[in-house]
């Protein structure tokens, strides 16, 4: 896809916001005033303001999760510092950490794009590309827009679905999200429409204020088909270090949705993202999920197989390097007869990183003849790194067919020797083996992502020997 850029930074836009910063400075916790202010800036309809305020109430009542990786670094009393819209977005390239600049260079990302990725604010003109596609899509009745616009132009749809699948009371960060969400993508595919090109939200998230609490809402009506690609594979740098996005996917009867994403946040990020799909009769949701960056991640996309014969394919890869604790996996709830799921993951840890695969498969009483197979493999690249697999199965339905396979291993030295005996250097041999390990995942990714994932792996392995 051809990309266009507008280099100019819209100064005025940022200046206005800068003035507002001071308002928040004295507030320690999240208050009603702050929420009202966010809502007013965003020109929310009244029901959305109400929704935000209710979420705030819920947020105040719920405790932090007591399981999973340590997130005590998050200072919840100072939560407002994470919430300030756009206030901490870097607006000077020189402030972007060296490490991130280097990554951009190594990935061969052009200058304009680098700045955009870093959130410096050089606006990426997705509009041009977007409009050309948009014409074709709108002719078919497809809606693809940002959440703010959707809230204006498709208010009824948004209102019907928004945070019904991930209700604010779900957990603390869902509640926080409900209160402060901003930005994100909205896609609506009418019944029977096959969207042939993958839709990408590639850089949309870099729009002002987005990328931290963005909301993605996708509705694929009966018999329709969509491939949606979200995120970008270069690290998105934010000084503020909490990401609590939310993704809700509604896949109606006989529909298919493939949702691909590579999350590669900068190394200071707490990534606490909630993603969920509701899959109706004979429908299929396919998740392709890559987790690379961040300091801590907790990410378990959930598929609720709600209609008879609903299916889920989950393919995930997680790479935890130095200082990273990535806790990822998948959740599947079989809630109807003859539902089936396939979970296939690879996790890699190196240089003291910790990667945990965590999954929950639940087969309810209403789901006879459910089928689920889980295959999770972990690779530890050195003795300092950690890998765990924590699969939980809760089977109540009759005649369930459940398979589980877990492997934790190291690079086979014999395999390294074999490759070296063919003239391949040790470094390259190890990289090849790691790439081979994630190959079943890589081949599910869109090409450009697969290439970037390989580049990322090479970057990660650099200096390993």
């Amino acid at each position, binding site marked *: 896809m051809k990309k266009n850029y507008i280099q100019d930074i819209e100064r005025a836009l940022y200046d206005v916001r800068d003035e507002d910063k001071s308002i928040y400075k004295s507030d320690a916790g999240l208050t009603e005033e702050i929420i009202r202010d966010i809502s007013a800036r965003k020109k929310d309809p009244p029901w959305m303001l109400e929704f935000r305020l209710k979420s705030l109430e819920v947020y105040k009542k719920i405790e932090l999760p007591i399981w999973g990786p340590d997130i005590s670094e998050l200072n919840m009393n100072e939560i407002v510092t994470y919430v300030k819209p756009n206030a901490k977005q870097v607006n000077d390239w020189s402030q972007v950490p060296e490490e991130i600049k280097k990554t951009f260079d190594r990935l061969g990302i052009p200058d304009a794009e680098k700045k955009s990725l870093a959130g410096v604010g050089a606006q990426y003109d997705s509009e041009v590309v977007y409009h050309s596609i948009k014409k074709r899509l709108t002719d078919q009745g497809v809606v693809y827009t940002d959440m703010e616009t959707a809230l204006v132009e498709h208010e009824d749809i948004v209102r019907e679905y928004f945070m019904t699948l991930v209700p604010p009371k779900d957990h603390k960060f869902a509640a926080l999200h409900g209160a402060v969400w901003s930005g994100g993508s909205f896609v609506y595919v009418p019944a029977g429409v096959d969207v042939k090109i993958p839709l990408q939200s590639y850089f949309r998230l870099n729009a002002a204020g987005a990328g931290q609490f963005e909301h993605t809402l996708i509705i694929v009506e009966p018999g329709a088909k969509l491939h949606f690609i979200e995120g970008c594979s270069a690290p998105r740098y934010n000084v503020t270090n909490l990401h609590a996005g939310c993704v809700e996917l509604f896949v109606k009867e006989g529909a298919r949705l493939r949702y691909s994403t590579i999350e590669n946040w900068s190394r200071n990020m707490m990534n606490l993202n909630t993603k969920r799909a509701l899959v109706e009769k004979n429908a299929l949701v396919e998740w392709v999920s890559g987790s690379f960056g961040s300091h801590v991640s907790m990410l378990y996309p959930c598929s609720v197989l709600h209609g008879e014969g609903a299916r889920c394919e989950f393919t995930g890869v997680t790479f935890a390097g130095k200082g990273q604790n990535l806790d990822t996996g998948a959740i599947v709830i079989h809630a109807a007869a003859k539902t089936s799921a396939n979970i296939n993951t690879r996790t890699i840890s190196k240089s003291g990183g910790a990667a945990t695969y965590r999954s929950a498969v639940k087969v309810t009483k209403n789901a006879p003849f459910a089928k689920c197979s889980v295959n999770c493999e972990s690779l530890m690249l050195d003795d300092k790194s950690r890998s765990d697999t924590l699969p939980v199965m809760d089977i109540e339905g009759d005649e369930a067919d459940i398979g589980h396979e877990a492997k934790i291993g190291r690079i086979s030295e014999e*395999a390294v020797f*074999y490759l070296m*005996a*063919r*003239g391949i250097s040790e470094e390259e041999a190890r990289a*090849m083996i790691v790439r081979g390990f994630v190959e079943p995942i890589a081949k599910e990714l869109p090409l450009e992502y697969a290439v970037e994932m390989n580049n990322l792996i090479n970057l990660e392995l650099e200096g390993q020997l």
Partner: protein
Amino acid sequence: MLEIKNLYVKAGEKEILRGLNLSVGKGEVHVILGPNGSGKSTLMNVIMGHPKYEITSGEIFFEGEDLTALKTFERARRGIFLSFQTPEEIPGITVENMLRTAKQAISGEKIKILQFRKELRAIMSELKINPEYASRYMNVGFSGGEKKRNEILQLLVLNPKLALLDETDSGLDVDAVEIVSGGVAKFHNENNSCVIITHNAQILKHLPVNRAHIFLSGRIVKSGGAELVSEVSEHGYAPYEVES
């Protein structure tokens, strides 16, 4: 081409090679015959530089260069190739991708994908390997015989100066032995050399054997011409044990 002098090798505490001498000239084909566990594979691995084995004394020279100072991949780039007795399975790396990477590493030149594919296909068809195997992961799920044939494919693609073949013929059916043997014969010319470990004479049919060596308990106890091969198949190794 290959010169091994008084080589002693240990794996952990176990001494496996004990004073081994072997000299292979350019254009020559050598056969090594020896009972199970005598250390033949160890010798091959040591020539290739396997980290598991420690050379306690002795020397290995390849084209006048001391090999022991070189890493495994450097030895391969100098032109040494080992056809493994039990080839490794490498998930996620296709035969084609690995071989192209290897060929590039050895030649130091970038090789065009399409051109390489053509070349690979041609050799595969000579070895009667289904072209689909090019896009299968290296040895993963291959039968024993398929793995061996795949080693010969690599030999022909990489075209080294010295081919070390460790029981490439064992576990093969009659037709496969014929194919593999034909492959080695195709590879061999007056500028390269072969060291072949085998338990049966079948593979040698199309090859001009220059020297045969009886290998017992970590060293060569007798060397001679091709006639040793039939001697061993008739009488076994017992007669040589006295000599050792």
